[in-house]
């Protein structure tokens, strides 16, 4: 069972954990990607995330399906935020439950690694003196 969400609202880690909790799951792994206060020593004021929404949701769904198939996990919650984020806020939360912990860890890591490669979401870092789309240029 999968819970895929792309939202401008604050992400809720408890909702993700509650979704994946199950009596037959022995291990839950949760990854929380938060907004860092600096990049290469330069102070970040805030971040903005933009998404190609229908495709982002479809790609997130695919990733969670692949992870379920590949690692035999029970449930996956995959929530990503868009819009303006303040320092320390969660941009992404991934929760995975599995009968054994190795599958939960592997699947969670697969989801975040693949999300960062394929899901059409873009992060703009806003500094005191300008802004930059992350990873845009070589």
């Amino acid at each position: 069972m999968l819970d895929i969400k792309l939202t401008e609202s604050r992400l809720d880690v408890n909702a993700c954990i509650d979704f994946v909790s199950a009596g037959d799951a022995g291990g839950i792994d949760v990854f929380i990607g938060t907004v860092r206060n600096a990049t290469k020593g330069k102070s970040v004021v805030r971040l903005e995330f933009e998404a190609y929404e229908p495709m982002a949701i479809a790609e997130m769904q695919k990733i969670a399906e692949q992870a379920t198939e590949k690692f035999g996990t029970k449930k996956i919650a995959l929530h990503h935020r868009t819009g303006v984020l303040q320092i320390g806020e969660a941009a992404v939360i991934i929760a995975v439950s599995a009968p054994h912990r190795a599958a939960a860890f592997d699947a969670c890591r697969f989801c975040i690694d693949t999300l960062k490669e394929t899901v059409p979401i873009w992060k703009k870092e806003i500094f005191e003196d300008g802004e930059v789309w992350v990873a845009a240029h070589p």
Partner: protein
Amino acid sequence: MRITILSFGIAKDITGKRFLNWEMTAGASVGELRKSLVESFPRLAELASVRLAVNSEYVPETLELSENDEVALIPPVSGG
């Protein structure tokens, strides 16, 4: 035929608009559309990468486009 172009992230800064209507000859491929876009917006070539998604799917550059296809310009993604 008419193709709808969607631009995101830095690609939108370069094309200047979220949506563009783009004319291509019938049977043009994704690769030919890319060439046409880079001719109009040369700064796209400076990016680390630009993938073209057709109707919300990553596709090979050889794919033939159809009237009213929606093509998204996907610069390097940076979610998570």
